[in-house]
């Protein structure tokens, strides 16, 4: 296949089972990834309609550098969030990015609703929908195994993504499993897929592309590859992985424990990256096109009968899952953390939101705001068994309480009380009690993600409390990250892929036009994303930072509420400045 300068996008109507190939002129300046997803949502999205309107699109977008360079390995998913009804992005790796690239597409748009539970299949010369009604209700791992069997073509290096019962049942924080160990995790993308009667998607990745002539591309590839593998640049991610943060944050009194009732605990060592590596790390694996291999897979060995009868499971772990299924629930045993992660993952829940929501439910039960009539099982901090049952109730929405909790912790707190300790920052918080800048950045940021702007890092590094400097950091950091999510790079590579490197990379693959317009294009993409978020209902006045987080005391001392509120006010003004 020739690498067309135009972007090739498959637009498929699941109801009519008809596809068409669309071509987009990249001269429009949307770059790819985040920009391409926003551009496609402008065409196919329905800003006034809810997430479950059959016409709402699911969008998957890669970028100009996908596959060309190491760690250009991510896919941006654009969708209307079941969690907040706004235009949202979720990002994932696995094999999906390269599989889409080698199928000959930069983007995939799925509209309509399949008549029966189905699996969508796309390859360089194939397209269609498989009837998989018999997989409905099945967990993500069983479903993955069967999908591999029923569609044998491309076996061994295709990408298979699928949802679990949580996504089928419309849980507002259902996730999508990508190739077993990666996820489109947040903001309920699993239910956006489930409402389309879509259990799985198989991308074949069975084509090849021509490379640009000359030696410049090859030289740059080799230089970047060496930087990724032979320098310290990626060591943190390769060695202990992100769980290295557990001890560091705990020592700073900045690790959320027990629904943020405390920020440090002597039990941290038992769930640290070091402990996982020593006791449970089975192996590491990688997204396609990434020589770093940051995916840490733990071995969970469970005895199911006497006479030493065991099953074993492989569960990926990272800092955020350890926080949400570990410290936030006051669990100080690494194996117990893996047990909960496996349960959450299996039913297709976003582990971050699931853990934080159960932490709130545990405290609400403890305080008598709700009773076991609601939770159906005893929930107790540090106790795994109750949580295992609660995960199942949450995914199946067994009673009114779990139906409400499945709409998010804030929705449950609004209905039952306990808003002051509902640890929600736009969505359930990420694993950093670092203070003012992180709380503001997640609460008001575009994805409500710790990855939007690195506020947690600013909290740890910056000494001053200048509002101007902080706002400037947040906006600059957002732009730097949008540049990467347009390419689409893994954000772990941000130390390698600065603007100069990206411009160089675009130039050697023959996209000098993109390189020259890069800063302006990034600004336009930033604006486009915010425009869509506002058009679909974003209202920063509806966001607040809960009392529990305002009471944070960490290595800096008590949180400065006045600084935080002023920062929030000014950040909103700055964001509104990007929206015409």
């Amino acid at each position: 296949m020739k690498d067309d300068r135009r972007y090739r996008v498959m637009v498929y109507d699941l109801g009519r089972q008809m596809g068409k190939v669309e071509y987009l002129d990249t001269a429009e300046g949307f770059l790819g990834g985040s920009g391409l997803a926003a551009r496609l949502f402008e065409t196919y999205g329905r800003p006034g309609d809810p997430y479950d309107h059959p016409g709402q699109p699911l969008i998957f977008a890669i970028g100009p550098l996908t596959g060309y360079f190491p760690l250009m390995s991510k896919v941006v998913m654009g969708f209307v969030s079941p969690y907040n009804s706004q235009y949202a992005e979720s990002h994932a790796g696995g094999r999906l990015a390269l599989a889409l690239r080698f199928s000959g597409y930069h983007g995939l748009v799925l509209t309509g609703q399949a008549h029966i539970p189905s699996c969508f299949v796309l390859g360089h010369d194939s397209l269609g929908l498989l009837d998989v009604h018999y997989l409905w209700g099945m967990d993500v791992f069983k479903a993955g195994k069967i999908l591999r069997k029923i569609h044998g073509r491309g076996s061994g290096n295709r990408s298979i993504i699928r949802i679990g019962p949580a996504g089928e049942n419309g849980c507002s924080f259902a996730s999508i499993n990508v190739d077993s160990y990666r996820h489109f995790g947040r903001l309920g993308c699993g239910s956006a897929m489930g409402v389309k009667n879509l259990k799985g998607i198989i991308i074949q990745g069975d084509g090849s592309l021509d490379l640009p002539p000359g030696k410049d591309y090859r030289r740059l590839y080799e230089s970047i590859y060496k930087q990724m593998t032979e320098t310290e640049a990626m060591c943190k991610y390769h060695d202990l992985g992100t769980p290295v943060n557990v001890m560091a944050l705990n020592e700073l009194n900045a690790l959320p424990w027990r629904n943020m009732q405390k920020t440090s605990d002597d039990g941290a060592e038992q769930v640290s990256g070091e402990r996982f590596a020593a006791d449970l790390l089975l192996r590491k694996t990688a997204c396609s096109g990434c020589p770093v291999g940051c995916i840490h897979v733990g071995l969970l060995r469970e005895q199911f009968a006497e006479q030493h009868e065991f099953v074993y499971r492989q569960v990926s772990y990272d800092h955020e899952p350890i926080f949400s299924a570990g410290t936030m629930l006051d669990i100080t045993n690494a194996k117990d953390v893996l047990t909960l992660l496996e349960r959450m993952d299996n039913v297709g829940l976003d582990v971050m939101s699931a853990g934080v929501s159960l932490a709130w439910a545990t405290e609400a039960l403890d305080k008598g705001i709700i009773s076991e009539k609601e939770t159906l099982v005893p929930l107790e901090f540090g106790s795994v068994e109750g949580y295992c049952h609660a995960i199942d109730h949450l995914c199946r929405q067994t009673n009114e309480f779990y139906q409400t909790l499945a709409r998010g912790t804030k929705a449950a707190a609004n209905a039952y009380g306990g808003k002051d300790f509902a640890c929600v920052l736009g969505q359930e918080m990420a694993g950093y009690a670092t203070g003012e800048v992180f709380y503001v950045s997640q609460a008001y940021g575009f994805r409500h993600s710790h990855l939007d702007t690195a506020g947690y890092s600013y909290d740890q590094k910056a000494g001053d409390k200048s509002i101007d400097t902080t706002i400037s950091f947040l906006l600059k950091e957002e732009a730097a990250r949008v540049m990467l999510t347009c390419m689409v790079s893994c954000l772990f590579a941000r130390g390698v892929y600065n603007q100069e490197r990206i411009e160089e990379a675009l130039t050697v693959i023959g996209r000098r036009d993109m390189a020259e317009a890069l800063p302006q294009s990034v600004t336009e993409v930033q604006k486009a994303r915010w425009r869509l978020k506002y058009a679909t209902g974003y209202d920063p006045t509806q966001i607040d930072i809960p009392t529990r987080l305002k009471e944070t005391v960490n290595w800096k001392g008590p949180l400065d509420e006045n600084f935080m509120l002023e920062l929030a006010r000014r950040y909103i003004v700055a964001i509104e400045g990007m929206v015409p």
Partner: protein
Amino acid sequence: MKILRASRMDRCIGCFSCSLTCARVVHKSLSWSRSGIRIHSAAGLSTGFEAQVCLACTHAPCADACPTGAFSQRRGGGVIVKRDLCIRCGECARACPVNAILMDPELGDPIVCIHCGQCVSFCPHDCLEMVQGHVIKEAIHEG
């Protein structure tokens, strides 16, 4: 002459850097399949990875099966490929006992490892190595 061996595939993380390198350097393509070495998950990603690659036969059945002489025996093991002689009949691929030859679905060309070793330095876990062909032969006899 040296030959490529995927000796330590139990270390493989599935990054495809080897396949991407062969495609980039040998076949001037962006691909994970237009490559002499192709990586597959064994039976889903929880079971590790396998390399589909020429085992460097010293009496190569693919060369025997080739009706035009496009494939000929390489000293030390494997084959020498003369692409301009190939008529894309696929006899080589059918003759290979380990399915190491891919008939490129788009170009129709047979894609097989030429034991150039370009991929070796791009494996981050040292799964691959170049070894002397005759050493392998002796090892087989010893076994």
